């Protein structure tokens, strides 16, 4: 698959995320406290609530509905009610744009 252009790096604040929809799928793109970028599926694996309104703390994303928590670098489910890991995707930055490999 080719790299998909998702957003400008400045579109995401440090320690935050945005939603990115592409080809009928939805993703979450994160900017870490170290200004590195990560991408996961957009929906929580618990009840499929979108993570876009969730809270990013360090390298974790917390679902806005039930506070399930994931490590967005690896997708690992860290806190119930999530038991299933999030799928993650590779990212890269080219000319100030965040690209994802889906």
């Amino acid at each position, binding site marked *: 698959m080719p790299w998909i252009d998702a957003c400008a790096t400045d579109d995401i604040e440090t320690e935050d995320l945005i939603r990115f929809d592409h080809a009928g799928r939805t993703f979450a793109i994160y900017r870490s406290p170290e200004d590195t970028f990560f991408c996961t599926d957009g929906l929580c694996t618990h009840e499929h609530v979108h993570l876009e309104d969730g*809270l990013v703390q360090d390298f974790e994303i*917390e679902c806005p509905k039930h506070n399930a928590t994931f490590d967005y670098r690896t997708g690992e489910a860290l806190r119930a009610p999530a*038991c299933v890991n999030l799928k993650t995707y590779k990212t890269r930055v080219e000319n100030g744009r965040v690209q994802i490999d889906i």
Partner: protein
Amino acid sequence: MTKRDYSLLGDDARRAVDSGLAAAEWYHTDVPRKTMKALMTRSDQPAIRDTIILFGAMIALAGIGIALWPSWWSAPFWLAYGTLYGSAMDSRWHECSHGTAFKTRWMNDALYQIASFCMMRNATTWRWSHARHHSETYIVGRDPEIAVMRPPAFIKLVLNFVGVFDVAAALPRMVYNAFVGVHPEEKTFIPETEWPKVVRTARIYVAIYAATIGLAAWLGSLLPLMVIGLPRLYGAWHHVMTGLLQHGGLADNVVDHRLNSRTVIMNPISRFIYWNMNYHVEHHMFPMVPYHALPQLHETIKHDLPAANRSIAEAFAEMWPALVRQLRYEDFFIKRVLPDTAKPYREDFHAALAAE
């Protein structure tokens, strides 16, 4: 008039799923992302302060109670200790189940385990039941935490001020979980991978209570049970009083927390015991916001909410007659007026669901 079936395995549960009510998107007041991020920010400091005060007060009160035992002069100290044990622990259980009390996860988890034990709530089971309560708040047949069913059972409501029915339900379930396994109703909201934890937790609780009862028998005194176990009864009144107000007399089977939840302005002592859950519409709409930021969230979104009740007494004066009326008219509920600045309720959506 509709007869409600509150069983999680019953007709209303099936209807909620079939009509789409169980999976519907809930109403949220618009809050700018920057503001919401600030409100959601976690901190250890407020909860560490409150936890030191809570456990410090419990140790002091129980110590005085033990020193004065068996004199009746110990009674007020037991009442105060019991209120912290049987009521403040309810709000600690709740906030920590959301993981919002502390920024540090192990602190949340530690207080959650202690509070769950005090409240006789299986720490694993209730984490999942509360997730369902938030997904499907007061959806009949789906929400396992509906405190006031219709028609209201007033004897049960009143006796629960001293925890009678809660404990009468909790103890057999604890023994069932410890020796039989996960109950069929619990299997509807707890993933199978978590079932062994439910059993392990129940066995630990049974062992602690058995040891406490054994100690009381050996000493020939109620004193050990005054410290562990009985305060869940004699100290329950405050959490029942405030808990009834959360949703009592309001709508069910809706997807707008402004219709099914109540915010009540309370005195500072009740707010400490209740950990600000008096801001209940706000909490349900934005469960990511920690307890210490709820007053600020209230100020941010109150333009979109019905006016808060101004006191516990005022809220009861609103709720109690509605519960009485629900004895004869189960479909009756209080529909509170929104301010002019609010977005209207989704009448058409709820009417369509009701017609399903």
